[in-house]
């Protein structure tokens, strides 16, 4: 090829259409893309199945065991006995069936964990959204309140609250508030940052120019574009909150009179040398549950972030 040649590529048969609309192209939006990515990942399916099993167990523990976890079914004669037919994990100090206690105990863990997460997320969402969207003094006040709550370790705060509440008033809701009411500050920070980012987008200005009010802009455009990280944080904190419930029960300030993994772990402390299994099994149940939710959160985070998706 010499320097001053004028090269022209052979013209292909197809007509030159500028900016053709791909009507048959694959559907795509944030959630659909995330779903397509997630369903190809084994980790997502493992975490989902485990989480589902645990939730079903919490709702109908009878499906998993027909042995009662309390009362007459507990025979002190069987105290710390190993596995027996119909009792796959053996018995604890009180002679109760460990598997049955794990199945029934999931109810407390999951309900308290879920409720606390919902409470924490809703408070955090409202505080963060208002602070981020309205800015100015609203932001200053709400963010400082958030900072104060941020400095209080929520476990300690929950212990204080539960100690103050008389034993017979320690309901699921009180416990959930004690945990969720002190763990919303990080959610608020994330929501605020996300709202600040989305608020800058041109489509928000476009809505204002259409005549949409500030509050309705927040609800219909800004919030839906800010929830993705919130869902990730909520899933991750679900795991934390389940742990928190167990910690409180372990310390004896959990729900009174209900079966809980934390309480069982606490009970088993004294026999850790002679019957370690009565400590290990409920701990394992707790670990698997928390891991399942945290894994789910991680998968969600990776799949909702197009940048992280592209790197794999």
């Amino acid at each position, binding site marked *: 090829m010499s320097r001053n040649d004028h090269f022209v590529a052979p013209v292909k048969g197809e007509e030159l259409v500028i900016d053709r609309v791909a009507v048959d192209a694959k559907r795509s939006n944030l959630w659909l893309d995330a779903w397509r990515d997630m369903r190809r990942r084994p980790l997502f399916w493992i975490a989902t199945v485990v989480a589902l099993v645990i939730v079903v167990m919490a709702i109908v523990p009878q499906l998993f065991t027909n042995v009662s976890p309390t009362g007459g079914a507990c025979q002190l004669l069987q105290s710390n006995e190993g596995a027996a037919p119909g009792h796959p994990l053996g018995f604890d100090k009180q002679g109760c069936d460990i598997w049955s206690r794990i199945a029934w105990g999931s109810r407390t863990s999951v309900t308290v964990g879920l409720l606390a997460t919902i409470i924490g997320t809703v408070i955090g969402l409202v505080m963060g959204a208002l602070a981020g969207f309205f800015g100015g003094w609203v932001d200053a006040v709400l963010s400082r309140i958030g900072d104060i709550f941020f400095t209080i370790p929520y476990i300690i705060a929950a212990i204080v609250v539960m100690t103050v509440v008389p034993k017979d008033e320690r309901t699921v809701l009180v416990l959930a508030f004690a945990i969720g009411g002190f763990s919303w500050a990080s959610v608020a920070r994330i929501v605020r940052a996300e709202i600040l980012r989305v608020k800058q987008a*041109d489509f928000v200005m476009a809505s204002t120019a*259409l005549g949409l009010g500030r509050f309705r802009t927040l609800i219909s455009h800004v919030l839906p574009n800010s929830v993705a990280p919130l869902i990730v944080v909520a899933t991750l904190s679900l795991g934390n909150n389940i742990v928190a419930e167990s910690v409180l029960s372990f310390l004896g300030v959990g729900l009174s009179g209900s079966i809980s993994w934390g309480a069982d772990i606490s009970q088993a402390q004294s026999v850790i040398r002679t019957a370690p299994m009565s400590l290990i099994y409920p701990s394992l149940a707790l670990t698997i549950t928390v891991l399942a939710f945290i894994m789910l959160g991680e998968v969600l985070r990776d799949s909702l972030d197009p940048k992280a998706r592209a790197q794999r």
Partner: protein
Amino acid sequence: MTEEKTLLSVRDLTISFGKGKKQREVVHGVSFDVYEGETVAIVGESGSGKSTTATAVIDLLPGTGQVTGGTVSLNGRELTGLKRSEMERLRGREIGYVPQDPMSNLNPVWSVGFQVKETIRANGLASNRREVHKLAVEVLQNAGLADAERRMHQFPHQFSGGMRQRALIGIGLSADPKLLIADEPTSALDVTVQQVILDHLAGLTRDKGTSVLFITHDLGLAAERADRIIVMSRGEIVESGPSREILENPQHPYTQRLVAAAPSLASKRIQASVVSSGAIQQTSVLLEQEPVVEVRELVKEYQIRGGGLRSTPFRAVDGVSFQIPKGKTLALVGESGSGKSTVAKMVLQLEKPTSGSVLIEGRETTSMSRQDVFDLRSRMQPVFQDPYGSLDPMRSLGSLIAEPLKIHGIGDAASRRARVHELLEQVALPVSLAERYPNELSGGQRQRIAVARALALKPSIIVLDEAVSALDVLVQDQILQLLSDLQSELDLTYLFITHDLAVVRVAADLVAVMEKGRIVEQGTVDRVFANPEMEYTQRLLNAIPGKDLKLGAA
């Protein structure tokens, strides 16, 4: 011309992205040569593979990109398959690189001087501290930064965009490479800055005999700056040859379209494809009509925080006045920071003016009640610059187009759906798109959706804030044609905000040139372009790349 020696030779280069089953070839067998001392431009739209080809030459392909076939050789030495360490030795010393975005290509935590010195040390040009410093100052001076000695210690944020790009060019040329690859080096800069920088770059490379591989989307710029042009489309070279020849005698249908669509000063005003029945108005008559939009002595001041509690007022807009007659387009043109977008926001009632007034259809808006402003919004709609940011990604296109109807309580669900379909047809998009989401569309298609949304309430005024600036030339041409068709069909009045004088030439009837918050000159496009009265306007016009070329005149 003396003996021709090939410097860079690319043969049958294929490049793919992705791994395994997802691998996708984006450059399909590209061959070209760059001779010593010449400037070659690769021109193409976004996605044509022009930048990919250039980055493959220095082995800087992003992510999963890899060369899957063909050869690249520099001075007869094969570059594909070189070891990383060998390639690193080559970069800088043999091949220099000037990246596209001056804003993100300097590390903000190190001083500019440090980054120049780093290059000098990495290329082994000097090792002694004093020598390195001396050389670094020299590099910046050569790049056209006056008082380089003082500037050495400054950080990138203290540099303007043009100064950063100078520093990057200096870095790229610091080791006297034989080949300089400049990837859209001035796309982010104002035209006047672009001109100065490219003149400087041309001077430097001419003196040193450096070959330049210039990547650009702007055909006019390529024709003005390069000896030869390579036109790429969809990963293939469709045409290549001497610049003049390509422009004056394009052979491939794609190049022909590209040359025809490129707006330039020689182009004519785009006419609606359906000829309007009314007689063509003389421009003098234009100004006597009752204005639909009138801006009087508009001023906007911002408080810039100084140290402590002090704050100094900054006049972003300083006494701006103009009028737009019904059914006409006024282009407000200026460089970045001239205050043109602030004026648009005040007209749109998104910002309150410090003083002065905006009259829409004869009514004063500054003292309007909230309800009146709300009603006004249905008469006046914006289309914003960024087609990727101005549509809410979580909403379907149908619901986005219907949103203005919903907000203003017009019609029921069924009639709104009918109107959405009607609007989609008006902007030449298939009706089936109503169910789909913004990120399924290209930039030009999104901008059509934005136009459809703006038209939903049947407004009489549309404010187009850099509405075509982010689009490729061919798509830009299409959208401008669409806007022109809609204008004559619906008798719309446009306020057109842009930095691109060539676009003004084809899209506007009237023009107001802004500089530092003031309008320095206004009048009909024909008059201002033919006989600019102000020196600033003259300078802007001169800076347009390819101004003498007969681009888009067909």
